[in-house]
């Protein structure tokens, strides 16, 4: 599903990722861990095409990134649900509208849209907050809205960048449980986190990054 072959990325002479090679198969749930600045976010950005690699080859869901036309980028992105580190929610819209946006982009009709948005909000326990505006929510609630938006379109891949960064341990456990449930339906999931508690005893594959190098792989 996701293949990196000798991939490097530099920002102004600073190396963010150095010759990274790994594969994630369809239906896997993989953790990417490392300290701040280790390259976790850059790695995810390369997958959802917010950045282009300087070297190496990337293949996502059968698409060769270097051969991709500009008009193919939105098509590929519609196969990927992303929980951004900074959430990227629209403050002037309600919770419902923020989650619905992912479906509106895909041209889903209003009736189906309503059902699916409420289903997603139910999964993240935010159905009662559907009419609230984003700036009325706590950080943890905003994070859960971002998760609901990422899962509502039923993508084949979900990328979560520090999905428990702003939540208490109980909510954090709930979010991981939710992502596990989604993964059980066959969705490939990559979770970038510096919180080791999330994958300890999970039995999941963990990729470790250190200053842009892939330094190891383990089972959590």
């Amino acid at each position, binding site marked *: 599903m996701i293949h990196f072959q000798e991939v490097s990325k530099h920002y102004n002479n600073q190396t963010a990722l150095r010759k990274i090679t790994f594969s994630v198969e369809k239906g896997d749930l993989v953790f990417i861990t490392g300290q701040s600045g280790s390259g976790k976010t850059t790695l995810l950005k390369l997958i959802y095409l917010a950045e282009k690699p300087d070297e190496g080859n990337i293949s996502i869901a059968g698409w060769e990134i270097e051969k991709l036309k500009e008009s193919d980028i939105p098509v590929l992105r519609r196969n990927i649900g992303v929980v951004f580190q900074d959430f990227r929610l629209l403050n002037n819209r309600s919770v419902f509208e923020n989650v619905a946006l*992912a479906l509106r982009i*895909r041209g889903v009709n209003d009736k189906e849209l309503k059902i699916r948005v409420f289903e997603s909000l139910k999964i993240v326990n935010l159905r009662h907050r559907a009419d609230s505006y984003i700036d009325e929510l706590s950080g943890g609630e905003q994070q859960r809205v971002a998760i609901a938006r990422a899962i509502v379109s039923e993508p084949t891949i979900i990328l979560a960048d520090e999905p428990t960064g702003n939540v208490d341990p109980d909510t954090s456990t709930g979010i991981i449980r939710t992502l596990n449930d989604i993964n059980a339906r066959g969705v490939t999931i990559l979770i970038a986190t510096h919180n080791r508690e999330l994958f300890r005893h999970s039995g999941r594959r963990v990729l470790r990054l250190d200053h842009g190098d892939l330094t190891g792989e383990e089972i959590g």
Partner: protein
Amino acid sequence: MAFLYPFRVAVRSILHEKWINLLSILTIAAGILFTAITVLCLYNGDVATKKLPEKFSMMLYLKDNLSQEDLENIMNTTKKDEAVKAVKYIPKDKALEELKSTVKDTEYILDGLDENPLPDSIEVKLKDEAVGPETAKKLTSDLMKINGINEIEYGEKFLASIYSLIVGMKSIGIIFVVIMSAGMIFVCYSTVKILFYRKNREIETYKLLGATRGFIRAPFIIEGAVIGFCGGLLSLGGILSLYYIVIFRLSQTIPLFNAIVFPINISLFLPLAGLLIGITGAAIAIGRIRY
């Protein structure tokens, strides 16, 4: 209904940014109104020009004691010219009668005349499309080569002045319309560009979620179209007010205003012109969206 979504976003943005949009609408309305008034003036100038050929004629004054054969030669040669529509021979006696009828109230001016001082003449009418200083000059030059014509008169300087004035007015009018149109497109461009920058982060999010260029562009194009259309509607109101409140009322008391032609059907296209200006400005403002 998914296709209504861009309209909802556009309406929300128009209401949210109501002051900047209102300012743009008023600017565009004023621009279209001035342009429409300019076009109205040009149209009336054109109508007046089209009436000119009906009244225009050239007078060929003939030499005295011309033979019938020479007269027929002049008549036939003149008729053969492709610019000529009709020729009419006016004997000097008839010319004097016409002169007398023209100066009916001051006939005493002619009392001292012992004999008819007027020459025989030929009145030449040109085809409507041929009336102009160049054709009249060329025809004069050709006809003066024929034996028997003493002088040709057609108000050369007047005709040249009128045509220069018309050409000048048309050129200035066209330049004005082009500049105003470009200005109005720029107003719409600036408005949409400002809104586009303000929503930069929102647009980036759209792109990252997989929105197509059409999905991102549509609300802005609709917003530009609405701004332009509203501007066009206001200008239509302005031009109709100008007609009914000013021109129509004045024409009842001042006959000069009766001569103004107001093509009311064409003015109904003003909102459409505004719509096109709005769409063009918005499309240029958004430009090419890159991923």
